[in-house]
């Protein structure tokens, strides 16, 4: 599998949120603002790259019967070590990201990539897969977060300078001043609502593209996304 394909899969075709619908727990929990979505996405990307590389490097030694507990132990260990290292030596970053790091353990997209990609591919390919899957996740979370933030609070990227440093203060925008806010958009139900609408839009375009294709060549319909592992 070449890097171009890995990139396309991660960002769009097999996007963790929009195609595989994995990692719903952190998705619903943190997408109350664009900044939160971005922070969670970046932290997850780092863990995905690390876990994919570790699991790819031991893939030949792990027997299929015990692979799931092995992956879970490795991912949990990695996340815990990242948590401790950030806390000890990058404390300013930890104060902002600390909230997200513990949540990454419950993101089954990390386990999903270990199972469906890293355990079957080389280290370099796995690292790229982790990177682009993570970026696709970041993109999705930031998009959902921005929509909820805009409608819910009338701002975009509020408190971005806390996450990215004072240089990024220009990202913080108040789009609608003196906005009363729509509380429901910040509460969990709106997470499902916005995600559902975005999935519908994505499917609409895919189906339309497929219909055009069929009209041209009467080829087989586009295959659905890979079967997701049943968890939240």
């Amino acid at each position: 599998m070449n890097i171009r394909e890995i990139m396309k899969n991660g960002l769009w075709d097999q996007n963790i949120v929009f195609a595989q619908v994995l990692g719903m727990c952190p998705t619903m929990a943190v997408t109350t603002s664009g900044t939160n979505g971005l922070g969670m996405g970046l932290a997850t990307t780092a863990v995905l790259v690390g876990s994919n590389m570790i699991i790819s490097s031991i893939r030949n030694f792990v027997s299929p019967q015990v692979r799931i507990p092995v992956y879970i132990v490795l991912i949990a260990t990695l996340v815990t070590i990242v948590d401790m290292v950030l806390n000890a030596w990058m404390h300013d970053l930890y104060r902002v990201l600390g909230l997200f790091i513990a949540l990454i353990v419950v993101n089954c997209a990390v386990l999903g990539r270990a199972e469906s990609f890293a355990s079957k591919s080389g280290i370099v390919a796995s690292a790229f897969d982790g990177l682009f899957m993570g970026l696709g996740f970041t993109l999705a979370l930031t998009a959902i977060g921005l929509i909820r933030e805009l409608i819910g609070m009338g701002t975009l990227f509020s408190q971005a300078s806390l996450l990215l440093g004072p240089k990024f203060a220009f990202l913080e925008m108040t789009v609608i001043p003196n906005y009363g806010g729509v509380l429901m958009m910040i509460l969990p139900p709106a997470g499902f609502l916005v995600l559902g609408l975005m999935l519908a839009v994505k499917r609409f375009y895919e189906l339309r593209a497929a219909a055009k294709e069929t009209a041209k060549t009467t080829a087989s319909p586009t295959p659905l996304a890979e079967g997701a592992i049943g968890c939240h």
Partner: protein
Amino acid sequence: MSKLDELRDRLFYQPLSLGLIALATSAALSFANQSTQEGIADAEKRDLQTSLSEVLPAGHGDNDLLKDTVTVADNDGKEVTIYRSRKAGTVNGVVFKTAARGYAGDIVVLIGLDEKGTMLGARVIKHQETPGLGDKIEVAKSKWIHDFEGKSLDNLPAEKWAVKKDGGVFDQFAGATITPRAVVKAVKQGLDFYAGHREEILSAPTQGEAK
């Protein structure tokens, strides 16, 4: 490879490999724990120092608060560490932690009082409230926490120590009443605790640097 494939299917290989992975990860974890312990303790101490200086106005005391502590048991028998600020040897302020249950777990508030029991400042130092909703209790996200400054049990009657929804003077947030309610409760508890143990807190000999 074929030899490894054969080996992988043997019964002894699976528990053994699982055991080895567990051993390796435990070793990695304890190593990481050991090497980060000092850093984390330092970072937490720095955090505490920053918070301590935030709840007292600049130049309030002239001593090192971290080195002038007393431990007093509250009414439930729980020990509270109190940091004392002194000016020219006399205690002119105290800082301690107080907590109440919020929407998700305990909210820990650090409060600073002058010796008479008037609020000098408060900061939430630990909470797990909903991001975007309940986290307006953080000073980085809202000015709300400054509302406590200057208030005391004397200038604000007990029934007014509540959010506006409950007939008090403190704002609640849109969509999050439980969180500010818990913070107000924690601060009020802290003031009650100070009022009940004032003599003890002011006169006890210092116990030195906090653990």
